[in-house]
């Protein structure tokens, strides 16, 4: 077999280095992709943790506004639960309301949930309204008060007509 010349040896070396570089590049690219994926996954977990790990003061503020909350359920179930709880709260405040009306919710879903609204109309004392409003946050299905109209009779200033629309989330 003929002996390789210096030129041949150099060419072989360059070829070997090139082949090694290609292997490193291919393996490295895959590895970097996998790493990027792992980092994204870690970022997601960190974001989740951040969401859960709220500052104590912030959490206390949130709890004063939303002391209880239940995860939304299917529309039929959630509406009934919400209506029953609201009715119970009205009774607790000794407000005799008209039958609660279910209104269609907004078109745009919020945080992945649809909105269902309940309207309540009643004539009652102003103090009863205050009692009712003070206890509303205890409703675990309540999302928010959409509308409140209070009308006073000038002749009977303590008596008010109340129109209230409240909302809940449904799946």
């Amino acid at each position, binding site marked *: 077999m003929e002996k390789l010349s210096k030129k041949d040896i150099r060419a072989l070396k360059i070829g070997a280095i090139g082949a090694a570089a290609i292997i490193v590049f291919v393996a490295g690219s895959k*590895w970097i992709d*996998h*790493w990027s994926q*792992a*980092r994204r*996954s*870690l970022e*997601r*977990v960190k974001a*989740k*943790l951040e*969401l*859960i790990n*709220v500052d104590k003061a912030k959490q206390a*503020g*949130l709890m004063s*506004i*939303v002391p209880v*909350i239940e*995860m*939304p359920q299917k529309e039929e179930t959630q509406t009934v639960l919400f209506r029953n709880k609201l009715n119970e709260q009205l009774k607790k405040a000794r407000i005799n309301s008209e039958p609660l009306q279910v209104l269609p919710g*907004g078109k*745009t879903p*919020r*945080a992945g949930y649809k*909105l269902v609204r309940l309207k309540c109309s009643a004539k009652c004392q102003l103090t009863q309204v*205050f009692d009712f*409003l*003070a206890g509303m*946050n205890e409703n675990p299905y*309540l*999302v*928010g*008060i*959409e*509308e*409140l*109209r*209070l*009308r*006073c009779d*000038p002749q009977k*200033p303590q008596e008010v007509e109340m129109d209230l629309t409240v*909302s809940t*989330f449904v799946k």
Partner: protein
Amino acid sequence: MSGNAHNADKRLCAIAIAHEENEFKAVEVRKQGETIEMLWAKSGQDSDTNWLSFAAECGLSIGLTEKDKTDGDKTTVIGFSSAGVAFYNIGLPAAKEDELKSMVRMQAETLLPLPVEQMELTWRKGRVRNGQVAVAVAAARREYLKDFVENVCALNPAKILLDCEGAVKAWKELFGGNEKDAVIVNLTARSTQVCLAEDGYLSNAIILDMGIEDFLEMADNLPDSENEGVPEQTEATERFIFDVKSALEAFDYTEAAKLPIFVLSNGGNTIKGIVAYLKSAGLNVRAALPQIQKMRAQMDFEIEQLYEYRVPIGLALMAIEAPADGFSLFDRLYRPAGVKQKRAILYSPKIAGAIAAVMLAVFVIISYAIDVASPGVIEESLKTTDSSTDINQLMQQQNLTRIVAMERPNLLELIKHISESGDSSIKLESIHFKKGQLVSITGQVQSPDQLYKFQESLMSKSGIKDVKIQNTSRDNKTKNVKFTMTFHYKNFTKKGTRT
């Protein structure tokens, strides 16, 4: 065993050059086992020559040659005159080498005649007595040493040694020196080295400015032998005895009286006489004669030659046997060409680079492993803490809470703000709040002033903005002013808020 046998058989050569007063002296010595062989010896007056030209006369190459690099058995050493070197003997507590180093430096600072930055110093640990270690320190002015290095560096010597160490070595090897501690007196033409040797190593030296020439004028008066009774003292001999005694005192040797003093001698009358003078002064002194039988020479080599070349021979023997034993005054100023400085391994750029690359690779791998493992570990850890906890469920619950909190206006607070803002004369008829619309209030006031005050008061409440009086009319019956007022409440009434 085999190593020792190998060393015994190994032939080692050294060339030593010393400058003694006005003369350069060079020898090449070979040692094989116990046999010392003088290959050549040469001297030259310094008025006719200098270090380089004398070396050239001796046939030495100037600068580093390929031969020097490969001829590992042959080394060249240069003798440095100890006249410019100060010696100190200090006692320090026995400690580790590095602690001792700093203690020596601190102690030397108090002893040196110049600031320590201007001096080069070296030290050698002696024996330990009563927990104190004796340290011999040699120091010299740095500039003086640098000048010397400039003169000799072209010869590329393996080491520069103190000439008085050469004298002590010669005494040990060729003048029958076998005492543990002794004083060696080495006379030259115009000066005398008085060297204290402890355990066979130089530990102190003092140079006297009297030499053989000072005694030549009185040669006739000198006794023929040291045994011929007490010689007649002269001013020079008295001074010499006084200087030697002062030197012994300066050595601060505990048993100075018993210390044997050896005067290196060529067997001539002058030195015999000097020995007799010193003996008459009560010193334990004797002449040390060269043992020519210990030396083989390829040329005509007699006692006189051995005596004349004692210092370079001593230096050459040091170079052959243990050059590292010498005081290393020049270590920081001179390094032979081709000899790399011993450095910590991390100083090597290649090794440091390799370590950095490995560390970088480890860092990348660890970062990757952490990034890959972390999400699973966090979720697993949450599950371990509370098995009922599902991170996704927790997240959804928290998210829902936050969204709901943003959806809930505090209408009780709003009604409180409104009722606090107006006085009792204001009769409110209605309040209307609807998300995405301005809050609207209707009512009656007795005078516009009350209305304006009511508006201003509302404007000062937190969360209430853009308070506007939209509509006013006078009631014909009551003469009251009917009004409609609107305002924004927090973000709930802004346009874009879901309705």
